[in-house]
């Protein structure tokens, strides 16, 4: 009789403390702390060179850390590699298969002792009809779906997906997202490395934003947006009749609760503020009595806005610190 492990949400699947890695004197991961719990889909986001891929490669024992305490499924990724790796399903950023290998052969090759249902996975990911096709002849989306099949084949306890949808067309990306969403729904722990923020918002319940090997902030997508991109923008064009009284209009809008600023952008009025502004401006437009402007637009901040704000703030902080250090150096 087999034992089926049901992950407890509090179970730590990945615990990293103080992970540091440098290549030739350049630090790419800098005292990183990371926790992934069972059943979570965690997104590692950040610009190129943030250290995301290096981090997940270290988690799989494919690279060694210079410093830090790393436990994956309670194991040391390097010392316990033989025990750990079969429990991880992984899609690496830059890894492929032999050109002449056929889909069915790939499934047989990667099917370890724990593997079951390779044919069914092929069916579920829409690859069954390609069973006899060579890897070289597959499209980008088909290849990524095959990599997902291979990552899931051995019933992994942790799935690591690195830039899974890079280079895919919109339809193929949606197919892959759908597959990852299904993984999430079955309670599989997933670590998703990406710089596609729409993907992160759609799939991840916890996001870790990185820059130059450091964690800038982490939380749910909503928490990150709330902390770093709170302002909404409401924009509409002034009618010709209103242009003469534009200054008064701007002053009125500026007095509305929640508004932090009102500006003119060519013929448009642009109102920024908290989410309350959406309701307040709507009410003001209705109260004004005229027709609601046809070009009324509300921009609600998303994870991309939050990340950009976060990166800008970190950059400014970094420049500030460098400048301060320079001044100190000059003074001494």
């Amino acid at each position, binding site marked *: 009789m087999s034992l089926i492990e049901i992950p407890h949400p509090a179970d730590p699947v990945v615990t990293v403390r103080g992970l540091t890695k440098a290549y030739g004197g350049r630090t790419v991961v800098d005292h990183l702390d990371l926790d992934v719990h069972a059943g979570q889909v965690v997104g590692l986001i950040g610009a190129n060179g943030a250290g995301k891929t290096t981090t997940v490669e270290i988690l799989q024992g494919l690279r060694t850390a210079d410093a830090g305490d790393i436990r994956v499924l309670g194991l040391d990724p390097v010392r316990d590699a033989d025990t750990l790796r079969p429990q991880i399903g992984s899609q690496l950023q830059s*890894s*492929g*298969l*032999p050109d*002449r290998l056929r889909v069915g052969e790939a499934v047989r090759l990667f099917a*370890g*002792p724990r593997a*079951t249902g390779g044919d069914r996975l092929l069916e579920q990911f829409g690859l069954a009809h390609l069973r006899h096709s060579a890897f070289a002849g597959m499209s980008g989306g088909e290849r990524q779906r095959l990599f997902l099949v291979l990552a899931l084949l051995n019933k992994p306890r942790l799935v690591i997906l690195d830039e899974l949808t890079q280079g895919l067309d919109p339809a193929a990306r949606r197919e892959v997202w759908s597959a990852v969403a*299904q993984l999430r729904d079955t309670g599989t722990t997933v670590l998703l490395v990406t710089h596609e923020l729409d993907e992160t918002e759609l799939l991840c319940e916890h996001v870790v934003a990185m820059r130059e090997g450091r964690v800038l902030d982490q939380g749910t997508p909503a928490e990150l947006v709330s902390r770093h991109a709170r302002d909404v923008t409401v924009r509409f064009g002034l009618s010709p009749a209103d242009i003469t009284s534009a200054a008064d209009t701007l002053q009125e809008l500026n007095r509305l609760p929640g508004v932090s600023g009102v500006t003119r952008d060519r013929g448009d009025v642009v109102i920024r503020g908290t989410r309350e502004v959406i309701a307040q401006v709507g009410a003001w437009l209705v109260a004004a009595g005229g027709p609601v402007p046809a070009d009324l637009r509300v921009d609600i901040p998303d994870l991309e806005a939050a990340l950009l704000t976060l990166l800008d703030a970190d950059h400014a902080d970094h420049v500030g610190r460098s400048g301060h250090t320079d001044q100190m150096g000059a003074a001494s």
Partner: protein
Amino acid sequence: MRTTVLETTAEETTTEESPRRRHPSATRRLLTTELRLLTRDSLTLTFVLAFPIISMLIIGGVFGTEPDDAFPVNPSHWYVASYFTVVIGATGLIMLPVHIASYRERGVLRRFAASGFPRWSFALAELALGLTAIAVAGPLLLAVAAPVYGLPEVHDPIRVVAGIVAGSVAFISIGVLLGTLLPSSRAAQAVGLMLFFPSFLLGVGGPPPAVMSDAMREVSERLPLALATDAIREPWLGIGNGTGPLLAVIAIAVVACALAARRTVL
């Protein structure tokens, strides 16, 4: 959008109960796949199977069948015995470096490593692949040679087998090592061809040492492929015991095998 549903069935969970009883090992799965892929690789098949046979058929007929100053034995037999090493050289210097470098280039080895293949499985599979290629191509060469030139009598079978095994392990290891060191399959092909052809022409399938200048003979005697040839050819044709070359080839095999194993750990 296509909807996928991931399910677990009762049948799946039962497979976990006795996973090792029926499941082939990773090395076996790798070897099976590699052999299958080998049969689809026309460049490799040409070099390992066709090239030694065609070259042997051509050169074996050039110098007739009578021993003379240049050849201590029937020249056709000299080349039949020599060309067994061409198979070994082609496998080690062309087939494996190109194959493994292409794997590194495409990230296939990283995928094997990340997928939990045991650390030594790839090294063992490549060793078995190389030995299988030689075990098929070598006898095929002899089978073609037999009706055309006849097969030379084997004077010392134990030493010949020892020479073939040591030479095979040495050149398979060198090939694996080259494949793990060179950055791309193109580079591996270029380096492999540059190593193979001088060794082939000077040390194995070209003119006999007796007609070479002193300098060229000096060079040819020190080539690893020439040492492997002597270790096989001398006891085969009864023109020496091949002990010196055999010991040298064993030393090369030990060093190359250790380095190759170290480089191919997943």
